[in-house]
């Protein structure tokens, strides 16, 4: 068992919390638009990698910055954070919105990414298989839609959500809404994805109710070097429902 060490860095005025564990080549995780799922699933990677889990501004333990109002601001934020961490090249894993952010980072800076893994990347427009508009749903319905087997998520949620829990979710949803209330999808990203030449693995739960696994085909068409791994009997948080995919991602990154 590795223990994550927590540090807080002031990145261009934003107190940014980063958790780090393990030794080896650096592996950065970009979390999704909510943080209730936690990052303890990254544990197996710490045997081979130095796992670095930053919280995005406006999410989890990091501070808010209302001027961070488009995804490119997050790309800039991470360029500055990686400077502060003295990270030159690294493996990158992105979950859901974090997958989209990883792709956005990658089309501009793919030479810094050794290998890329994305889990159910969100927010890329696929008109034929639109993602669920999670901003339109009450919070409890979004949480219910995250997994096929709710038992894997249940222990991570409070039995009776108190106002602090609800307020934390409201804050993270606000941060998401800041990015995409008026424009829920990035219409331009597909145009630039061919620049992301990094070897990439995309893992997707076949029964993802948030971002349909059918969107994988669009990524397959757009990315030059991509492997798609669709996992049966799993939803959006496939890494929680099928822990073996965590191992497969680790193997892909270290191969």
């Amino acid at each position: 068992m590795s223990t994550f060490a927590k540090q807080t860095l002031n990145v261009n005025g934003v107190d940014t919390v980063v958790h780090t564990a393990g030794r080896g080549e650096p592996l950065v995780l970009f979390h999704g638009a909510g943080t209730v799922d936690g990052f303890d699933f990254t544990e197996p990677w710490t045997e081979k990698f130095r796992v670095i889990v930053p919280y995005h501004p406006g999410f989890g333990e990091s501070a808010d910055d209302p001027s961070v109002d488009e995804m490119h601001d997050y790309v800039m934020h991470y360029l500055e954070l990686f400077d502060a961490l003295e990270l030159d090249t690294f493996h990158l894993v992105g979950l859901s919105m974090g997958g989209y952010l990883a792709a956005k980072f990658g089309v501009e800076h793919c030479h810094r990414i050794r290998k890329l893994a994305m889990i159910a990347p969100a927010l890329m427009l696929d008109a034929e298989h639109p993602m669920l508009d999670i901003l339109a749903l009450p919070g409890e319905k979004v949480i219910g839609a995250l997994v096929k087997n709710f038992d894997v998520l249940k222990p991570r949620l409070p039995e009776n959500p108190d106002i602090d829990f609800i307020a934390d979710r409201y804050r993270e949803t606000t941060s998401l809404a800041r990015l995409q209330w008026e424009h829920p999808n990035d219409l331009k990203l597909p145009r630039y994805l061919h620049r992301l030449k990094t070897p990439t693995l995309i893992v997707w739960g076949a029964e993802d109710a948030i971002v349909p696994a059918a969107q994988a085909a669009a990524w397959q068409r757009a990315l030059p070097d991509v492997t798609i791994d669709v996992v049966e009997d799993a939803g959006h948080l496939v890494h929680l429902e099928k822990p073996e995919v965590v191992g497969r991602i680790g193997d892909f990154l270290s191969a």
Partner: protein
Amino acid sequence: MSDSMRFDVMHFMPYVYLPDNHKEFASTWVNFPNRYYDPEKAHGLYQQYFEQLVLADRLGFDAIVLNEHHNTVYSMMATPNVVAAALLPRLRRARICVWGVPPNFMQPNRLAEEYAILDVLSEGRLEIALPLGTGMEYWANSVSPVTARERFRESLKIMLQAWSEDGPTTHYGKHFTYRYLNPWPRPYQKPHPPCYIVGTGSPETIELAAELGFGYSSVFATQARAKELNDTLRERASHHGFTLRPDQLPLLTFVYVAETDDEAEQEYKGHLRRFYEDFARSTPQWLAPPGYISVEQLKIRAAGSDRLHGGFDFDHIRESTFVAVGSPETVANLLGEWAERMGTNHLNNVMHVADMPHWKTTKNLTLFAEEVMPRLRTGSPKPAAVAG
């Protein structure tokens, strides 16, 4: 506050023909299916409501108050300026108050123009309020609730500039760019119609009203809270160099007058219940879209129960909010006492709620004008406790 007491009538113009199965829907706002809207029935309702407001004008009410809501049975005024324009030629002397169009759902120059036209048409009888818009409206419009407050402030600045400064002027802001801000027409009243901010008392909104020296009307606040808000506003306004007049603090009341207290209660209670339970029925999600309020405000609001958008307890509502139901004497005494306590001489009375039939509304308006107004316009009212 005798002769100068001002009496407004506010009408929500609800769409009253709810389907039998409406209780199956958690909310009658935002996503309540519009297949239940029947334009022929709506036409009849507009005729009836207009008749009520024309009657109010003839009876001597000082102003007619309209407002804006979207995607709901609560109000048939998605664009109140259209309703105001239709109503204007039928009014003889009453002011027309559009309280108001949320600037966030308009281009600010365009809203400045619409209000200017209404002001010119009415020879300066227009008053306006500038609301942020309820959370519900942000689900219905293509404007982010996250940046609503900063966008709202910028819109107000543009509107005031358009009215107060000779054009063309320019505006280069975050949300809007005007290379030639030069609207024709300009308001009849100089520099612009009287302005109010309407809100539920968020600190940001109070501060904005104080900064601009605008009037303020809190909606659906408890008596204690409304008093607190008026006091805060006066204090903040004076901090910014303004002295608020009593008429700049209109008090929103729900009023029903009948021959006796018992009759009034009998005739009114069911409609108020329907107002709370059916017409104002919303959900926490609709009330607070992401970023519409701060996390701190969310916690404060969650701590206090929301009496409007939920259950109905007549006695509690009557004791804690401004609902005056009873004989002319009872109503006059209550209103007089509240006006005094709130430091206002301006009553904005909702006299039709929910599915109240035409006859009750016209009776309410008539009794109020003939029996309540004279009591409040002369002499000081007795305390309510004495009036039984």
